[in-house]
C-alpha cells in the first residue's frame, strides 16, 4: 500500500456509535505508534540535529533545559463544558460533549519533508499524556466556536506537556476551532502538541492556532490535516509572542474539490522566534490552495517561513497560490522566507511570492501631512498590515 492510500484510509471514520467509541478508547482499533528510538523529548531533539529544517533552532539548549523536565501524570477529574476544552500540562481537565479522551489513536504515516515526519510528531504520537478527539457528527453545523486551551504551567518545576488533539468533521459538518496556547510559571516549560484534522467530504473546518506565550514557555507543534472531496479547511497560525514557537503544518488534499486556505500572522518583539513550516500536498486533480503568511518583526526578533507546495503527478488542474509578506521594523530583526514549489503535474496554476520590507515612506508622509505624528503613522500602517489577517479569523 502506498503512503498516500494509507493516509486516505486513516482519514476515514472507523465506525459510528458507542461501541466504536469504546473500542477506540481501549485502543483496540489501532496499535499505538511503535516508533523506536524516540521515547523521550531529548531523543526527538537529537533526531533533528543537523537537519536543514531545524537550522534556526537552538537544539542543544533544548536538551540542556528540558533534558530532565517533568511530565504531569495525575489524571485530573474531567469537568465538562459546552464549548471549552482545557488541557493543562498535557492532561485533559475539561471537555465538551463532542469530545472523548482516547487511550490510543491511529499511527501517523510519515511523509518525508513534512510535519508528519518531524521527530516531535513521532514523540507526541507515541508519548502524549492525553489524546482528545473532537468529532462533529455528519451534517452538523456547530454554531459556537470550540476553544481548546492548551496551558503549560511551570510553577514548581521545569515541565513538558505533550498533547495530542484530533478534530474530525464528518461529512457535511462544519466547525470553528480556536487552539490557544498559553501558560504561566517561573520555570522553563515546553508545550508539545500534535493536532490532526480530518475534513470529510463537503465539510468545513476553520482552525486557528494562537500562540501567545510567556517568556518561560516554548512551543513545538505539528498540525496534520486530511481534506476530502469538496471539503474546505482554513488554518490560521497566529504567532503573537513567545520566546520560541515552531509550527509544522501539513495539509493533504486527498480528493478532488478539496480546498485549503492557509493564513499566518507573526508579531514578534525582543528576541522572539516564530518558525513556520507549511506543506500543502496536492495529491489528486482539481484541488485548490491559497496561502498567505505575514510577519511583523520588531527589535531583534526572527521569523522563518518555509512554505512547500507539492503538486503530485496525478494532481492535474491544481490551483495553488502562496505568498509571504514581512515587515522588518527592528534594526536586528530577521526574516528567512523560503518558498518551495515542487510540481510534477503539467496542467496546473501555481504562483508564489515573498516580499520583505519596511513601511512605505510615501504612505508615512501622506499620513503625517494630515497631522499624524510619525509614531501614529507607523502604528496605523502596521495595524493595517496586520488587520487583513485578523479580518480573516473566524
Amino acid at each position, binding site marked *: 500500500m502506498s503512503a498516500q492510500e494509507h493516509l486516505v484510509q486513516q482519514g476515514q471514520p472507523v465506525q459510528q456509535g458507542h461501541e466504536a467509541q469504546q473500542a477506540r478508547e481501549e485502543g483496540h482499533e489501532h496499535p499505538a505508534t511503535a516508533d523506536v528510538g524516540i521515547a523521550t523529548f531529548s531523543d526527538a531533539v537529537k533526531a533533528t540535529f543537523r537537519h536543514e529544517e531545524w537550522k534556526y533552532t537552538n537544539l542543544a539548549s533544548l536538551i540542556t533545559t528540558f533534558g530532565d523536565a517533568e511530565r504531569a501524570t495525575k489524571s485530573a477529574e474531567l469537568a465538562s463544558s459546552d464549548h471549552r476544552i482545557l488541557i493543562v500540562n498535557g492532561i485533559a481537565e475539561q471537555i465538551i460533549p463532542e469530545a472523548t479522551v482516547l487511550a490510543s489513536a491511529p499511527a501517523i504515516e510519515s511523509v518525508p519533508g513534512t510535519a508528519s515526519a518531524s521527530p516531535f510528531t513521532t514523540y507526541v504520537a507515541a508519548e502524549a499524556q492525553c489524546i482528545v478527539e473532537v468529532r462533529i457528527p455528519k451534517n452538523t453545523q456547530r454554531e459556537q466556536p470550540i476553544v481548546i486551551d492548551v496551558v503549560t504551567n511551570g510553577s514548581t518545576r521545569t515541565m513538558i506537556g505533550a498533547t495530542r488533539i484530533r478534530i474530525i468533521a464528518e461529512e457535511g459538518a462544519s466547525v470553528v476551532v480556536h487552539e490557544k496556547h498559553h501558560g504561566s510559571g517561573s520555570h522553563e516549560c515546553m508545550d508539545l502538541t500534535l493536532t490532526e484534522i480530518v475534513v470529510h467530504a463537503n465539510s468545513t473546518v476553520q482552525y486557528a492556532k494562537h500562540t501567545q506565550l510567556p517568556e518561560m514557555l516554548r512551543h513545538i507543534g505539528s498540525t496534520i490535516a486530511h481534506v476530502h472531496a469538496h471539503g474546505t479547511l482554513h488554518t490560521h497560525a497566529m504567532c503573537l509572542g513567545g520566546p520560541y514557537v515552531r509550527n509544522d503544518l501539513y495539509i493533504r488534499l486527498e480528493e478532488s474539490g478539496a480546498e485549503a486556505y492557509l493564513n499566518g500572522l507573526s508579531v514578534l518583539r525582543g528576541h522572539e522566534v516564530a518558525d513556520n513550516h507549511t506543506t500543502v500536498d496536492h495529491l489528486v486533480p482539481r484541488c485548490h490552495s491559497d496561502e498567505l503568511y505575514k510577519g511583523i518583526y520588531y527589535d531583534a526578533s526572527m521569523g522563518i517561513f518555509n512554505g512547500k507546495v507539492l503538486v503530485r503527478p496525478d494532481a492535474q488542474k491544481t490551483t495553488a497560490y502562496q505568498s509571504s509578506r514581512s515587515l522588518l521594523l527592528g534594526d536586528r530583526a530577521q526574516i528567512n522566507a523560503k518558498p518551495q514549489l515542487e510540481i510534477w503535474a503539467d496542467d496546473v496554476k501555481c504562483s508564489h511570492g515573498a516580499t520583505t520590507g519596511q513601511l*512605505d515612506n*510615501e504612505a508615512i508622509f501622506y499620513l*503625517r*501631512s494630515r*497631522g*499624524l505624528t*510619525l509614531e*501614529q503613522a507607523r502604528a496605523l500602517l502596521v495595524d*493595517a498590515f496586520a488587520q*487583513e489577517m485578523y479580518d480573516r479569523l473566524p
Partner: protein
Amino acid sequence: MKPLLIIDQLRAGIEGREILKGISLTVNPGEVHAIMGPNGSGKSTLASVLSGRSEYEVISGSVTYNGEDLLEKAPEERAQAGVFQAFQYPVEIPGVSTANFVRTSLNAIRAARGEEPLDPSAFLMRMKERMALVELDPSFLQRSLNEGFSGGEKKRNEIFQMAMLEPTLAILDETDSGLDIDALRIVANGVNALRTPNNAMVVITHYQRLLNYIVPDVVHVLMDGQLVLSGNKDLALELEAKGYDWLRNDGVVA
C-alpha cells in the same frame, strides 16, 4: 493685513540638483493664488517643500507662515498649524479605512491644538455633511484609503479631507487633472464653499477652465524653477491661448 504666507527667495532641490531657483511669493488671508507652468517646472516640488517632504533639500531662502518659520516644522506640525496639501497623486493605503484615517487625522490635529477629540456622533455628522459637499458616496468611508479609487474619486477624497480639516492654507496640486466636467464643478464648488476671509489657497493647475470656477486673485507662471510672470485671472486666458513659449523668448526669463 498680516500676510499668511511669505516665501522669500526660496531655492530648493533634490539629490544635488536645484529645482526651485529663487521663488518669492506672498499670500494674504482670503486670497486664492493660481500657479501655472509647463511640466517639470517645479510646481509639485514647491508644494512638497511647503508641506515638508524630507527628500527635498532647501538650499536657501525662507518660508514664513503665520509669522513662524515653516521650514523648521515637521510635516505633522505644519498640518497641525493649518497647512494642507491636496496631492497630485494621493497614495493608496490598503487596510486603513477612510473613516478611521480621517478620524485619526482630525483628532491628531485637534489634540495638537489642545482640543478634545470630536465625539463620535458629531464626527459622523460632520463626515456625512462634508462628503455630500463633494458628492462622495458614504460607502467610501469603509473602503481602504484611496485603494482602487478612480482618479476622480481620489481627488474628491482629497477635497473631502480638506473639508474635514478646515485648513488655513490649502495647496491644491492639480486637483482638477483627471476630472470630468461634472466632477470639476463639484470639486470647485466644494473648494469655494470652504473659502473664508481668513484662509487662503494656492491652486496649481494646467487648465484655465478650473479658474472659471475657483476665481483666483493672482495668477503666477512658474518656469524652470522661477516665477516669471504674475497677473490677474486674465493671464490664465492668455496662457491658454498662447502657451508658454513666448515667455521663454521675450526676455522675461532671467
